[in-house]
């Protein structure tokens, strides 16, 4: 039985447990129908030309794990940014871990999707926001049909959240292969501020495939700062579907740090709905071995006087593969838009590959749109400069890699996170530079 068929029959089994007469049930049914029709994307789909899911669909994934899922804090502590100074929503094999989490209902809601879907007090929010973006995408539909658990974050108007919120998905490896579908809903009220860090981490070398969907709604003047840390083991793959809907005067920034995993596909979609919105998308990708990371971005400008900034840096060693597909759409009424996109790549070894494709669709006539894409090797002159100061070849390269990635790193606004990512980069590059990067 193909994985698709297995999922379809799992859905039928799931239906027995579901809320029958609720609008949610209709949403699920519609979603599974869409997935059944479209199936998993293949290389024939334009948006998946350089990334094949074929080999990922072969293992016999467990869709509902009911194995033991105990995780000891001492084994996972290192994946937390802070033990006390953050809110935490921790999921283990797709199931909420109250032991590892720190939730709150005190003026803001940092809690569970399962609670939000089932309790009547959350009903208005669910009805207003759940699944309101990108209904047509088949992988998103697959997630919608099975939506069960994930983060539910609701920040009321004018609330400035005083500490970052961490969303962490662990997988134990107690199943030989596991398929996870976390579903996050984040609603940030008018003039509210929030910082969120998301991470997926496998604790074994068994196969993990995650198809995650995150919807973020920023009401007017909201500020959302979102960080994705992708540093998983080489048997874990991730399809991340993130949809951001921005009302007027909002700022939404997403930083994606892709250092690990077997295959990672980031579908990062921004929809601007009001004037003076600012969308920032930044990423550092550092790969080796046979790793494959695909950044597929969309910024949809529908209102005038808005900005978008994209800055993706990639370093590709050995036989790793990078993809950058950045699409900017400027609708007819979206005049005076300033859309900027930059994608710079360094191929460290001959076997490494980068496929870069900027796509601009502009229907307005008074816009500023710029995009630049570079693919190169190390600057020999810069290497010589460093070596002439007595710094060895390996260390010189590391310094240049660090300098190259720095424009993305310098806009990380959580100091502890910045230090953490610096360390990850130093580890990834494999040298100690004698000073804290």
């Amino acid at each position, binding site marked *: 039985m193909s994985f698709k068929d297995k999922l379809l029959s799992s859905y039928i089994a799931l239906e027995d447990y579901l809320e029958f007469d609720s609008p949610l049930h209709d949403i699920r049914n519609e979603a599974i129908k869409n997935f059944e029709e479209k199936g998993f994307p293949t290389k024939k789909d334009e948006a998946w030309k350089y990334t094949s899911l074929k080999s990922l669909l072969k293992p016999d994934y467990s869709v509902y794990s009911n194995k033991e899922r105990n995780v000891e804090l001492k084994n996972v502590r290192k994946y937390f940014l802070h033990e006390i100074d953050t809110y935490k929503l921790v999921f283990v094999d797709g199931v909420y871990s109250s032991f590892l989490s720190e939730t709150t209902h005190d003026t803001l809601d940092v809690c569970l999707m399962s609670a939000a879907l089932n309790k009547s007090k959350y009903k208005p929010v669910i009805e207003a926001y759940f699944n309101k973006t990108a209904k047509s995408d088949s992988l998103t539909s697959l997630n919608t049909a099975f939506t069960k658990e994930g983060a539910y974050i609701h920040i009321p108007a004018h609330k400035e959240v005083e500490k970052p919120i961490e969303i962490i998905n662990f997988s134990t490896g107690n199943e030989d292969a596991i398929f996870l579908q976390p579903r996050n809903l984040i609603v940030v009220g008018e003039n509210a501020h929030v910082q969120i860090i998301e991470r997926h981490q496998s604790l074994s070398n068994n196969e993990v495939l995650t198809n995650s969907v995150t919807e973020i709604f920023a009401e007017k003047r909201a500020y959302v700062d979102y960080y994705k840390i992708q540093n998983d083991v080489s048997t874990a793959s991730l399809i991340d579907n993130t949809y951001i809907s921005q009302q007027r005067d909002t700022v939404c920034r997403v930083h994606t740090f892709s250092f690990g995993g077997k295959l990672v596909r980031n579908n990062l979609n921004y929809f601007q709905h009001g004037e003076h919105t600012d969308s920032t998308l930044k990423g550092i990708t550092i790969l080796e071995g046979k790793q494959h990371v695909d950044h597929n971005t969309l910024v949809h400008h529908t209102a005038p006087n808005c900005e978008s900034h994209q800055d993706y840096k990639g370093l590709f060693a050995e036989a790793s593969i990078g993809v950058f597909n950045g699409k900017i759409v400027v609708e007819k009424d979206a005049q005076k838009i300033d859309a900027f996109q930059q994608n710079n790549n360094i191929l460290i070894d001959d076997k490494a590959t980068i496929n870069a494709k900027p796509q601009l669709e502009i229907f307005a006539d008074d816009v500023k749109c710029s995009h630049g894409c570079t693919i190169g090797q190390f600057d020999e002159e810069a290497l*010589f400069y*460093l070596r*002439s*100061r*007595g*710094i060895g070849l390996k*260390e010189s390269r590391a310094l240049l890699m660090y300098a190259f990635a*720095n424009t993305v790193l310098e806009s990380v606004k959580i100091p502890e996170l910045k230090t953490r990512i610096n360390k990850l980069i130093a580890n990834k590059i494999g040298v100690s530079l004698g*000073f804290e990067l």
Partner: protein
Amino acid sequence: MLKIKDLHAGLEGKDILQGINLDVKAGEVHAIMGPNGSGKSTLASVVAGKEEFDITKGEIDFNDEDITEMDPEERAHKGIFLSFQYPVEIPGVSVTNFIKTAINETRKSQGLEDMPASEMLKMIKDKAAMLEIDRKFLSRSLNEGFSGGEKKRNEIFQMAMLEPKLAILDETDSGLDIDALKVVANGVNKLKSEDNAVLLITHYQRLLDYIVPDYVHVLMDGKIVKSGTKELAYELEEKGYDWIKEEMV
């Protein structure tokens, strides 16, 4: 200290240096002058170990050791320093962190421990004061957004910190106003001793008013065509390079 014997070097099959002979002893200052495209910067880069150039013939000895095939970092460890004409920008790495790394890498190569932080700080403070460098400047990203003068001053600061045996200054005077030139020259003079040597690469005589050379060599078409004392520099300033060409014919 530095002995260059019949050095031929080029780039992609094109000969640039065509038989250079040069002997620089400890305590000496040599100036290499010459028109644009004569091979001055190539000579500086080849001595410092730039790998793009192919050495087709000849030899470079440093303190009686053949360094012709040596990596640039090894040459640096042995005490060769090149002040770049166009220093490279390294965003995200401060001047201080960069110089710490350079010093400790050199110490590591000599089997020494890292320099104690307090000693390093004191040295940075002293040398920065000597070159009239502001403390804030040291925490900026290396060369990023520096003016031409700041870049050159930073090169000499690195030289002061690394205390090389042979300092090669490639067009260090270009892009400097007269006040900055004086500060830089003053710094070089203070670092000068009986145990080290300086090779000045320059297009103009101006720098030589402040750093007085013991010998002046004229480089043309990849060869040293004339050598003399500092008076030769004045003659070049006055008459240009054409008369040497005519003399050669």
